């Protein structure tokens, strides 16, 4: 597609439920990143994919969070047993590889609200 696509754009769930957030990167971009943006705060790095592998998972806040990527394309971020503190906008970004010094291309985000 023309840009990074994320779905759903908004998700409201009850505490304790599992949620899946999807990211479809720009075609040909083999590097994919997930970030979290809590209300009024900056972006927190969660995980980086190169192809289908994740060499950097250092930002995942707990074992309730996981992500996978298949076919060097779509990625899914899964949050199990959601908590209210998981409420945030989850942003996905992609970039070409190998990268020189280029920027990240961001989607519009998935806004998660945990009641």
């Amino acid at each position: 597609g023309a840009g990074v696509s994320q779905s759903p754009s908004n998700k409201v769930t009850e505490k304790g439920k599992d949620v899946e957030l999807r990211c479809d990167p720009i075609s040909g971009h083999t590097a994919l990143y997930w970030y979290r943006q809590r209300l009024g705060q900056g972006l927190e790095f969660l995980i980086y994919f190169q192809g289908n592998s994740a060499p950097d998972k250092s930002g995942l806040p707990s074992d309730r969070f996981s992500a996978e990527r298949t076919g060097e394309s779509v990625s899914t971020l899964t949050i199990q047993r959601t908590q209210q503190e998981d409420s945030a906008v989850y942003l996905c970004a992609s970039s070409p590889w190998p990268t020189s010094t280029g920027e990240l291309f961001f989607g519009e985000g998935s806004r998660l609200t945990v009641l």
Partner: protein
Amino acid sequence: AQSVAQPEDQVNVAEGNPLTVKCTYSVSGNPYLFWYVQYPNRGLQFLLKYITGDNLVKGSYGFEAEFNKSQTSFHLKKPSALVSDSALYFCAVRGTSGGYNKLIFGAGTRLAVHP
């Protein structure tokens, strides 16, 4: 560890006046620095970057940024602000030399341009 500080939560400026949004950084080695803008309910958009070379970097929408190594700063500037520039601005530094663009973001500065 790499980090970025944006000391102002909000900057207010009158339309037509020059604007500055401040950013300081802490990195080991040569910094790769970025500015992004976020409009309401949208993802982040790349504005400009500094990698090497001229300390004054020009970017999108008439923005520019000045890299100052001695002050470890990378302030965003525009000679004449527009109301449409009102948005959330993020400074970021590349957080790894591993060849991928893991960006470490500041907390963001909200720019409000008044008519």
